[in-house]
């Protein structure tokens, strides 16, 4: 093995029933580098990582680790940890009700001579670990008292402390805001300087260019290439991931200059609120309008949408749909008024994992029709086929369980679920989170197309650029309060200013 290389995978091949998930994939990680693993949804990134960490049993190929003779084959994450491979996932897999120190040492607690847990050294050692990594926390506090970013860093600290040579970060930034991401990057650079090799999986291109040294691109389970970051500008990276030359995202720029000011008002909220999450707000949405709701994570942007939809029943205020005052106490009421909502937490509130793609897509329409008016199987298949086609959902077949699909395709299934109900007003809460660029562009185009058809859309996204491309107006949320609306001079800078608050309020 070359000097400096800590992990080398060669010719990894892995098959799932009917699908070749990885075919002859190579991957090389060196000491002290941050290496981005890029690819669209379903390209095989997760599968490769699962092969490295022992969750998947690959069929062919070999993995070599510095300092270990012969190929390594892990059969569990524990095996992987014992050879120095640790993984931190998007969802923090720690115990929120234990202290930071307990989380750091869970399962490997320092013991006293009497084989009892040595609490004193426990806390001092933990504090030292955190201080060394520059993470400012009190290790005796419960983990749940800290932000998601800190929790993620604790997970990383735990991984690193277990003598890891290879640290895998799988979408660690999806739920973090910009400031938190920056903190994470500081930590990553520090670890890199200590000689840890880091594999970084993310969908945010700018983050790749902010921290990474090298990029490996996968496509359809194949190895496309390994590049130094300076050799692969953004456009080329996108092209490598998608296998074509395309600047789709730029394309849908300025076409959203439709005049909708004459359109009737579809949704009108007055003083709507949900106790504890969103303060009373007013909001009007016109037919055919795409309105964005922006703000930091936790600013109440999702909660605003949920109060309209009845996902959280509004505590105060009135809501008019098509000029008529309505009462919404649960989602089905909203659905019967022609609404739909794609929630931000796909796993918890979106997909029904053990149901098939067909059942997942047909569910909302069926719920609207009622239990005793079942859609015939033939009808279901006809509708589902049409939308699988329209949304280009990649699935082995209609009866595949939705949990077996990649994240982006799951998201398309849920999108399909709502499109099938032909809604007049659709709430899309982070529809593009954790989704590759190609699919993002598709979804953005779809939003504009739906608006052209006269549907109203409430769009929430953490990516301002994405909202600028699609929205004609934006509501700004801060600390659970709607603090303003922007309807002209929509630029990244103006939106940021409005979110941050301070001098100007552009309404």
């Amino acid at each position, binding site marked *: 093995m070359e000097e400096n290389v800590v992990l080398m995978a060669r010719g990894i091949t892995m098959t799932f029933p009917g699908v070749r998930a990885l075919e002859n994939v190579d991957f090389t990680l060196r000491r002290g580098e941050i290496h981005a693993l890029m690819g669209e949804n379903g390209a095989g990134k997760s599968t490769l990582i699962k092969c490295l960490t022992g969750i998947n049993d690959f069929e062919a190929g070999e993995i070599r680790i510095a300092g270990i003779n012969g190929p390594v084959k892990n059969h569990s994450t524990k095996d992987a940890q014992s050879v120095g491979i640790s993984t931190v996932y998007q969802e923090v897999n720690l115990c929120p009700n234990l202290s930071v120190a307990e989380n750091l040492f869970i399962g490997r607690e320092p013991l006293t001579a009497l084989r009892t847990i040595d609490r004193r050294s426990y806390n001092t050692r933990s504090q030292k670990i955190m201080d060394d990594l520059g993470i400012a926390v009190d290790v005796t506090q419960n983990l749940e008292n800290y932000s998601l970013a800190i929790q993620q860093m604790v997970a990383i600290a735990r991984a690193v402390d277990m003598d890891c040579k290879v640290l895998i970060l799988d979408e660690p930034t999806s739920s973090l805001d910009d400031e938190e991401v920056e903190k994470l990057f500081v930590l990553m650079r520090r670890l890199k300087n200590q000689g840890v090799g880091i594999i970084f999986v993310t969908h945010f291109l700018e983050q790749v260019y902010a921290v990474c040294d090298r990029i490996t691109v996968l496509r359809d389970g194949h190895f496309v290439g390994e590049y130094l970051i300076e050799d692969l500008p953004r456009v080329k990276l996108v092209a490598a991931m998608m296998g074509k030359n395309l600047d789709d995202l730029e394309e849908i720029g300025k076409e959203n200059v439709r005049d909708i000011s004459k359109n009737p008002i579809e949704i009108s909220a007055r003083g709507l609120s949900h106790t504890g999450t969103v303060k009373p707000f007013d909001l009007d949405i016109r037919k055919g309008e795409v309105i964005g709701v922006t703000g930091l994570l936790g600013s109440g942007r999702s909660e605003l949408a949920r109060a309209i939809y009845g996902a959280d029943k509004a505590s105060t205020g009135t809501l008019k749909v098509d000029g008529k005052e309505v009462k919404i106490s649960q989602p089905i009421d909203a659905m019967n008024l022609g609404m739909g909502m794609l929630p931000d937490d796909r796993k918890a509130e979106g997909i029904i994992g053990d149901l098939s793609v067909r059942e997942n897509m047909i*569910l909302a329409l069926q719920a609207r029709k009622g239990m005793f008016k079942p859609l015939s199987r033939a009808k279901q298949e006809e509708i589902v086929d049409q939308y699988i086609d329209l949304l280009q959902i990649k699935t082995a077949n209609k009866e595949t369980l939705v949990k077996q699909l990649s994240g982006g395709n799951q998201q398309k299934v849920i999108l399909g679920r709502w499109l099938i109900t032909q809604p007049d007003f659709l709430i899309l809460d982070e529809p593009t989170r954790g989704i590759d660029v190609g699919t993002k562009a598709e979804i953005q185009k779809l939003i504009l197309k739906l608006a052209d058809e006269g549907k109203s859309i409430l769009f929430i996204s953490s990516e301002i650029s994405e909202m600028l491309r699609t929205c004609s107006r934006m509501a700004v949320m801060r600390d659970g309060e709607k603090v303003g609306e922007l309807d002209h001079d929509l630029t990244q800078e103006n939106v940021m200013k409005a979110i941050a608050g301070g001098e100007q309020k552009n309404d």
Partner: protein
Amino acid sequence: MTEKSFWKRVTGSGLLLPVMSLLLVMAVNIVFDILSGNNPFNFFMITLQQTTSNGSVLYGRIIDVLNRGSEAAILAIGMTLVVSSSAGTDISVGSVMSLCASFCCMLLAGYGVSSTNELAVPLVVGVLGGILMGSVCGAFNGTLVAYFRIQPMVATLILYSAARAVGLLLCNDLIVYVRNSSYAFFGSFLGPVPTPIVITAVCVAVITILLKKSALGMYIQSVGINAKASRISGLNSRRIMFLTYVLCGTFAGIAGIVASSRITSADSNNIGLYLEMDAILAVALGGNSLGGGRFNLAGSIIGAYTIQAITTTLYALGVSTTQAPVFKAIIVILIVAVQSEPVRAYMKKRRLARAAREGGAV
């Protein structure tokens, strides 16, 4: 791979292992009969026997399994739905059976009467009353689980311990006998066929039609897999969960009437005793996860009959009644182990390896 082979369909439906388990039990019977020099297919022999009270009726070990397994099979229907929707079990069904039987007999005999030949109210009133009592118990459980969000085990523990006592209370602490041939019908014969078999068949048919002709099956599974997402998609998750408990209680009521009719009395202390465990086991033997979600009703019913077949087989083998549970346990361990995740994964791996070898050779 355009046409699914028959074998693929069987293995894909999730019924393979439950059916295999049942076949295994039957095979034991065949081996035993061969060893003891009987007709190897004694287990499957169905003969017509003359009885004094019911004319000629079907007789045989397999009929016995179907007949005696009726209550467990009826309970297994409701239990399957409850497990699917709420990832919990209704442990009150055995006690609820007893309560329903007591209530039905009390209605038929009149309060405080310990033995009667004449019915105090029309038969249909008593029977429907008994079944309705089951629905009420189910509604009580369902309210606690779905609306008060109490863990199913704890919520149904209430009626598990209380229902029998309430039944005794209704019967004035007596064992009420309803010695009337019209009441005995539900536990005896319809023509040559044991009535419990017919009742079970009707229950299965009704629920199958309900699941086929409505979206209930998908609703229940959807709620069981992800109640939050189901709600966002327009399902009333709580109400659906509630409904499964009502159905489960109703089926317990029906099973209670059958059990009581067999002995033409309401023996509060013994009707349905430990039957909730058989029902839960039936669901598990049917290949259903007790963690909720996807369910396979046919599997559960096959599971219920498998349990009865084991019991009947053990008696036929001459195992004493007191020792039978030990052998039953051993067989159940085997069946459950074969269906467990690690064993399945191992089998799958071997299958894949074989396919790979064959693929490589060609």
